[in-house]
C-alpha cells in the first residue's frame, strides 16, 4: 500500500521534522484510504504548536503510520466515510473547537470547555455542571419507554449514564454518556514535574496500572535514549500478565454472578484477590503501582520472590482450571452466554473494537503479537478460535488468555535475569521529537503519544485507553437484546470509565 504516511516502530523516537506534514486534503485522502483498506486508528488528535493547531494521526496496518497536517477550523467529517474516526473527531471538536462537518453524531465526549476559548461546538453551557444535561437520542412510538441509569450506579462501580430506548423488554438503542470522571489527565501530564509523570500514568486507570505505566515508561525511554535491561523487561512482562490474570478472572467471576451461578463467582472473586496479592509480592501494591518507571523497574525479582511466586502459581493453577471447567461446563451458563449480545465481525471491524472484545468478534489483533515490546518478541501469542461475537465468545477469549498468561508467567519466573533497579528522577527529553507506544493491556490496545517542543518540554501528551474504542461495541451488543441482559453484556466488555474520561 503506497501512502504518504511515515512508517514508525512501536516506541521509536522520531525527529518531528521527519514526520510528513501534509496539506489537509492529502492528509485526509491518505488517512481515509489506509482505514478503508482495513487500517485502524490508533491515535488521532489535535495539538497546539506555537500559534497554530495541528492534527496528528497514528494509524495501524501491520505497521504503525503517522502524519500531521494543519488543522482547518472545520472540515468534512472523516466519520462519514470511515466509522473508526467517530470518537476521535468528537474529541478533537471538544478539545480544540474544530468542527467535523456532517459528522453523524456530533456530541461532547467528556463535557468540558475547549482549550482555545472558542465558542463551543456542541452549544453546551459549562456553568451547568451535569454532563447528562443534554437531549438524549430518542425513539418515538406509543410503546416506547426509556430507562435512565446513572451516573451513580447500584454497585461499587464507576459513574456513567446509560439511556435505554426500549420496546417492552427489548432494547432498541442504548446511548452511553460518560465524562463524569474527567480530571484533565492529559493537561496534567503536559504540565507536571517529571517526578509526577509515572504516578499520573499509573492512575489513569488503576486496573490498567501496568498497561498505562508501560506506555509512559517506554515513551520516556525512547525520548531519553535509555534502554531498560533484559531483566526489567521480563519483570514488566510478568506484571502485565498478572494484571491480565487478575482482571480476566475477576470478569469471569462477575459473569458467573450475573447468570446467578454463585460458586464460580465466589471462587473467582477470591482467586482474583490472590493474583492481586502476587502483584503486591512483586512491588508492594496490589495493582502494581510503583513498579514500572522510565528506565526499568523499581523492584528486582529476588530468589525468595521467585520461589513464592512459583509456589503460589502452582497452587492456584489447578484451582483456576477446575473453576473454569465448572463455569464453562454448566449448561445453564452456556444457555445464558450463547447468542447473547452478539457483535458481528462486520460491526466490530467498522467500530474498530480492540482487545478481548475485538478478538471475540473475529478481529485477531493483539499488540503483543503485532507490535511486541518488552519480552513479547520471544513469546508466542496464539490467535483465539472462538469468534462468535457473543457473551460466550468474550468469556471464552478470557478463558484462553487466563491459561496463556499463567503459562507465560511460569515460563519467565526462573529466567536467569538480573536487573538494575531504577528510581524516578528528573530526565531530559530529546527536543522536537515524537514517540508512540502501544501495549496490549488486558482490555486491549493502550497507546500513549508524546510530542516535545524545541526545548524538550512535553508539547502534547495523548493518552488512549482501549475503552475509547469499545464503549460503542457495548451499545451495539445491546441492540435487540433484552434489557435484563444488560449487566451480563456490560460485564462481558467490562470497560473503563476513568480511562475513557481521562
Amino acid at each position, binding site marked *: 500500500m503506497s501512502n504518504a504516511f511515515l512508517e514508525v516502530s512501536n516506541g521509536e523516537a522520531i525527529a518531528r521534522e521527519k514526520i510528513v506534514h501534509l496539506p489537509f486534503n492529502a492528509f485526509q485522502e491518505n488517512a481515509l484510504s489506509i482505514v478503508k483498506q482495513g487500517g485502524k486508528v490508533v491515535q488521532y488528535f489535535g495539538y497546539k504548536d506555537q500559534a497554530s493547531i495541528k492534527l496528528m494521526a497514528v494509524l495501524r496496518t501491520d505497521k504503525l503510520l503517522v502524519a500531521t497536517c494543519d488543522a482547518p477550523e472545520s472540515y468534512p467529517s472523516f466519520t462519514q466515510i470511515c466509522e473508526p474516526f467517530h470518537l476521535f473527531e468528537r474529541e478533537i471538536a471538544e478539545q480544540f473547537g474544530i468542527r467535523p462537518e456532517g459528522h453523524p453524531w456530533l456530541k461532547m465526549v467528556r463535557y468540558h470547555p475547549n482549550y482555545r476559548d472558542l465558542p463551543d461546538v456542541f452549544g453546551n453551557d459549562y456553568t451547568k*455542571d*451535569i454532563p447528562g444535561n443534554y437531549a438524549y437520542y430518542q425513539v418515538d412510538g406509543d410503546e416506547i419507554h426509556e430507562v435512565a441509569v446513572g*451516573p*451513580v450506579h447500584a*454497585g*461499587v*462501580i*464507576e*459513574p456513567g449514564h446509560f439511556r435505554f430506548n426500549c420496546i417492552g423488554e427489548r432494547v432498541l438503542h442504548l446511548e452511553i454518556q460518560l*465524562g*463524569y*470522571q*474527567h*480530571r*484533565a*489527565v492529559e493537561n*496534567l501530564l503536559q*504540565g*507536571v514535574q517529571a*517526578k*509526577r509523570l*509515572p*504516578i*499520573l500514568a*499509573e*492512575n*489513569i*486507570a*488503576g*486496573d490498567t*496500572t501496568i498497561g498505562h505505566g508501560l506506555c509512559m515508561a517506554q515513551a520516556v525511554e525512547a525520548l531519553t535514549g535509555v534502554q531498560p535491561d533484559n531483566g526489567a523487561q521480563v519483570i514488566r512482562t510478568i506484571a502485565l500478565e498478572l494484571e491480565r490474570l487478575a482482571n480476566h478472572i475477576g470478569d469471569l467471576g462477575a459473569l458467573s454472578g450475573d447468570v446467578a451461578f454463585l*460458586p464460580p463467582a*465466589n*471462587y473467582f*472473586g*477470591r482467586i*482474583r*484477590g490472590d493474583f492481586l*496479592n502476587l502483584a*503486591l*509480592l*512483586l512491588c*508492594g501494591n*496490589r495493582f502494581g*503501582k*510503583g513498579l514500572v518507571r522510565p528506565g526499568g523497574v*523499581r*523492584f528486582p525479582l529476588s530468589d525468595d520472590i521467585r520461589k*513464592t511466586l512459583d509456589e503460589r502459581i502452582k497452587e492456584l493453577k489447578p*484451582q483456576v482450571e*477446575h*473453576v473454569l*471447567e465448572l463455569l464453562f*461446563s454448566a449448561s445453564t451458563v452456556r444457555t445464558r452466554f450463547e447468542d447473547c449480545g452478539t457483535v458481528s465481525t462486520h460491526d466490530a471491524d467498522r467500530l474498530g473494537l480492540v482487545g478481548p472484545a475485538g478478538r471475540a468478534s473475529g478481529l485477531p489483533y493483539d499488540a503483543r503479537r503485532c507490535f511486541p515490546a518488552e519480552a513479547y518478541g520471544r513469546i508466542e501469542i496464539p490467535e483465539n478460535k472462538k469468534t462468535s461475537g457473543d457473551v460466550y465468545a468474550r468469556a471464552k477469549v478470557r478463558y484462553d488468555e487466563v491459561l496463556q498468561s499463567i503459562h507465560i508467567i511460569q515460563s519467565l519466573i526462573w529466567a536467569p535475569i538480573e536487573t538494575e533497579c531504577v*528510581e*524516578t*528522577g528528573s530526565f531530559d527529553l530529546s527536543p522536537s521529537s515524537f514517540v508512540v507506544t502501544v501495549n496490549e493491556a488486558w482490555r486491549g490496545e493502550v497507546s500513549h503519544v508524546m510530542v516535545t517542543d524545541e526545548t524538550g518540554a512535553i508539547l502534547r501528551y495523548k493518552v488512549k485507553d482501549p475503552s475509547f474504542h469499545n464503549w460503542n461495541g457495548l451499545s451495539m451488543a445491546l441492540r435487540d437484546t433484552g434489557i435484563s441482559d444488560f449487566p451480563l453484556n456490560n460485564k462481558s466488555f467490562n470497560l473503563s*470509565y*476513568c480511562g475513557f*474520561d481521562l
Partner: protein
Amino acid sequence: MLNTLKNRFEQGYRTCAYPNEKPAVFDRYRGKPMVQKGVAAEIVEQCAKACPQDAIDVGQKKIDMGRCVFCGACERISNGEFVKFTKDFEISTSQKSHLLTDGNLPALARHSKQHFKRLFGRSLQLRQVSAAGCNACEADLNVLATPFFDLARFGINFVASPRHSDGIVVTGPVSRNMRTALLQTYEAIPSPKVVIAVGSCTITGGPFCGSPEIAEGLDTILPVDLFIPGCPPHPLTNLHALLTFFK
C-alpha cells in the same frame, strides 16, 4: 452436580480470622510510615524534593498520609534513614490533621463518635459513590464482599440505594462533573449519616492535585468522619477502619 461439590470441597474455608488474627501481608507491602528519630534535616529535604506527591513536611519531619501514594521513594533514596514503611495496615484516622504523622497515630477507636457506635455498631449500610478516581479504591472496596474478607459477617453491607443507607463512602477526587451527583446522593441519605473518604484522591486530590477539574479534599465539600488513606488503601486497611470506628 458432582463437579460443583468437588469444587466446593477443593475451595475449602477461606475467610480470614481478622480482627482476631492479623493476616500476613507480603514483605514489600508499604503500610504505616515510621519516621526515624534524629534524622538529619538535609536528608528530609532530599526526600521532600524527590517525593512525587510533595507529601513531606520538612519542618515537622512528618509525612502527610493524605497526600502520600505510598510509593516508597523517600524510604529508598534515604536508605530508610528518614522513614521506613512498616507492614502495619491499620492507618485510618478520624481527623484529617492526624494524617500528617511521624508514625504515631492516635488510636482510632478512641476518636470515633460514640453515637455512631450506638447507632451503627450492629448494622451499618453504606452507599458508595465513585467520583473520578482510578477505580482501584472501588476495586479494593469490592473485594470486601469476597469470601476472604466477608464484610457482611460484621453486619456491614454496601447497598444500592442511598435511602437504605446510613452513610456514604466516597472514592476519587470529586471531579466537577461528579459534584452534583455526589451531593444529591448525600442529600438522599437519611440523617444521622456518616461520610467516609477512601484513598488519597478523595482526601487531598492525590495524584491529580493541581487539576482545575477536581476538588482538593472531600472535606471541602462534605463533613468527613473517617479518613482511610492509601493509593488505594489495602482491603485490610478498609476493614480495620470500618470495624474500629463503628464496632
